[in-house]
């Protein structure tokens, strides 16, 4: 049976891995190529590689970093950040990405999802949504979580999947950086609305949070985190052993 995936996320700015709390106060952490290679060796099932400032500042990804990463590691690689056009898809796929994640680019131009799915296949298109509760309503934010779009999140995500997105990364701004566990309520709502894989993001602080995630919400396919892996607070190999001991099917 298919295994639950553990996915470290490398937020990249100026060729370096960064991670902030609630998307603010970014601090330089590590070299993306070395970190990617380390994670692959430790048993990461996939890597997500975001240029987190690209959508705000209109920058493209640093494709040389991407190429170096993709020639060193041989696990699935998802790339996001600054993906606004089919040319952006093409650019990162040629550098070794397997999946391309769209966020602000799809909010500006929803047709991008359908066009990319038609050209590269549904499996290649990931909708990444930054979602925050506003007056008790799940609301989509754009530009790295800085801009309230006013759109209701579940409807937006469902629409993206209908247009051809093959996977969803749900990042809860409410729990991101808080390290008190994933946003189970928000994830449950998304899992019940779509039939494609859902990746949980935002809020993992310790290994137990992943156990709770997969035991409480069996429909969630993967757990994604950044700083707890980068700072060594959670070791991926140990996490996967712990998950297996708790009855979660993982690749060891």
């Amino acid at each position, binding site marked *: 049976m298919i295994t639950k*995936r553990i996915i470290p996320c490398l937020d990249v700015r100026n060729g370096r891995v960064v991670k902030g709390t609630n998307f603010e106060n970014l601090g330089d952490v590590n070299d993306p190529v070395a970190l990617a290679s380390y994670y692959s060796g430790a048993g990461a099932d996939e890597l997500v590689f975001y240029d987190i400032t690209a959508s705000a500042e209109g920058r493209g990804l640093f494709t040389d970093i991407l190429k170096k990463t993709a020639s060193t590691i*041989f696990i699935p690689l998802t790339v996001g950040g600054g993906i606004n056009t089919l040319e952006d898809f093409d650019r990162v796929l040629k550098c070794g990405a397997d999946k391309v994640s769209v966020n602000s680019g799809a909010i500006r131009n929803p047709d991008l999802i359908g066009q990319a799915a038609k050209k590269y296949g549904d499996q290649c298109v990931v909708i990444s949504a930054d979602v925050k509760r506003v007056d008790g309503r799940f609301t989509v934010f754009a530009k790295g979580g800085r801009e309230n779009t006013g759109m209701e999140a579940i409807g937006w995500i469902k629409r993206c999947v209908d247009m051809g997105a093959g996977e969803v990364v749900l990042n809860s701004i409410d729990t991101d950086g808080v390290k008190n566990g994933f946003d189970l309520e928000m994830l449950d709502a998304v899992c019940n609305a779509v039939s494609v894989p859902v990746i949980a993001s935002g809020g993992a602080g310790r290994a137990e949070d992943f156990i709770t995630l997969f035991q409480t919400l069996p429909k969630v396919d993967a757990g994604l985190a950044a700083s707890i892996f980068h700072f060594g607070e959670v070791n991926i190999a140990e996490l996967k052993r712990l998950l297996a001991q708790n009855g979660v099917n993982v690749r060891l």
Partner: protein
Amino acid sequence: MTAIIDYGVGNLFSLKSSFAAIGADAVVTSDPAVINDSDRIILPGVGAFADAAKKLRDAGLDSVLKAQVKTGKPLLGICLGMQMLFEKSCEYGEHDGLGLVQGSVVPMQGVIPAALKIPHIGWNALIFPADRPRSEIYKYINEGDCVYFVHSFYGADCGDAVTAYAEYGALLTASVQNGNVYGTQFHPEKSGDVGLKILKAFTEI
């Protein structure tokens, strides 16, 4: 030297890089002369069957591959590349395959329980059939090792050509072999060390 067939379908960057990582010589090519000179051939592929089969035919590479297989040269089809080895595909209409391995490509939908997501995407364990010797491409790995899958259709009615299954609500064909023709539904170039070991074993055939 391994010839990785470039016919305008899918992403060859990782495949080429993975050969570099195992220290094997590989070239991405659509040139029949280079393919004829190679020691072994990889047929990659991602996307829709009909489109890929047409591109392969339009480039005249279907007959090149068939002729090369007749000489005994090892051929490995990966993902859609494996599916093209079969006799036919039922992906959005009926389409002819290369007919190098028995079987046909059919949708998973209706075969696996409705609660399971399609595509079958992620890492799944290899199960070896008990009634046949282990395929040479698995000589460096173990049963139960996980490899990376992304597919919505699979090879059915492959008979004793099946060299491994993956369990996803049903036993799905994970790999096939007919003499010197090999196919993996999964992506060895995305399956970490296990995948690299499978590619290494293929380069030693």
